[in-house]
């Protein structure tokens, strides 16, 4: 699954650590999601979407 998390994070000037604290996970989890090594759970995807005030499908999408 692809995502634009690093772009959104850069736009908001948030570090991986800041975002990790906001969504209550470790920095390693955010790093793994950004590198597309790990697909987040639905609750985590919803939390991330809430932080960036976007819908889940705007941030996470399948490869076409």
């Amino acid at each position, binding site marked *: 699954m692809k995502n634009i998390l690093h772009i959104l994070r850069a736009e908001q000037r948030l570090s991986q650590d800041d975002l990790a604290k906001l969504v209550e*996970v*470790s920095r*390693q*989890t955010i790093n*793994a999601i950004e590198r597309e*090594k*790990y697909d*987040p*759970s639905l609750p*985590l995807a919803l939390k991330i979407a809430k932080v960036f005030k976007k819908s889940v499908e705007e941030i996470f999408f399948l490869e076409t």
Partner: protein
Amino acid sequence: MKTAIKYFSFPYKTHVLIFSVFMLILPVLILSNLEISAVLKLEASLLRLLFLIPTLIATIGLVYCTIGYHFQILRGDELKLRIHLEALNIAFTTTLVFFFIFIFLLLNFAPDLLISIIFISSIILIISYLIALQIVKVKYQ
């Protein structure tokens, strides 16, 4: 009860773990420091208590740590839970494969060692879990 366990933080797990391991080896330490003649002079009931009390304390401690670490992983970071579950899956499969191989080997060539299969399986499970943990961690880095 379920809610109480759900919110209990299981403090001092590492201390309890170290203490439990010490309690497990305590009878061996005591006996190794005694002369054989002194050990033979000990009453059977006293000797039994020498093993029973420390191992009972160790068992309670290890059960506490096991449940504590279980809830720590469940409540913790989801990537760590995923890594733990994948490592556990690999370790369990590896142990089962070795379990069946050892049953075949021991049953046919050394039936008297069949009793030790649980001990062998536990060692394989722990080692394979630790190796699998490192492999899975690399996958998510």
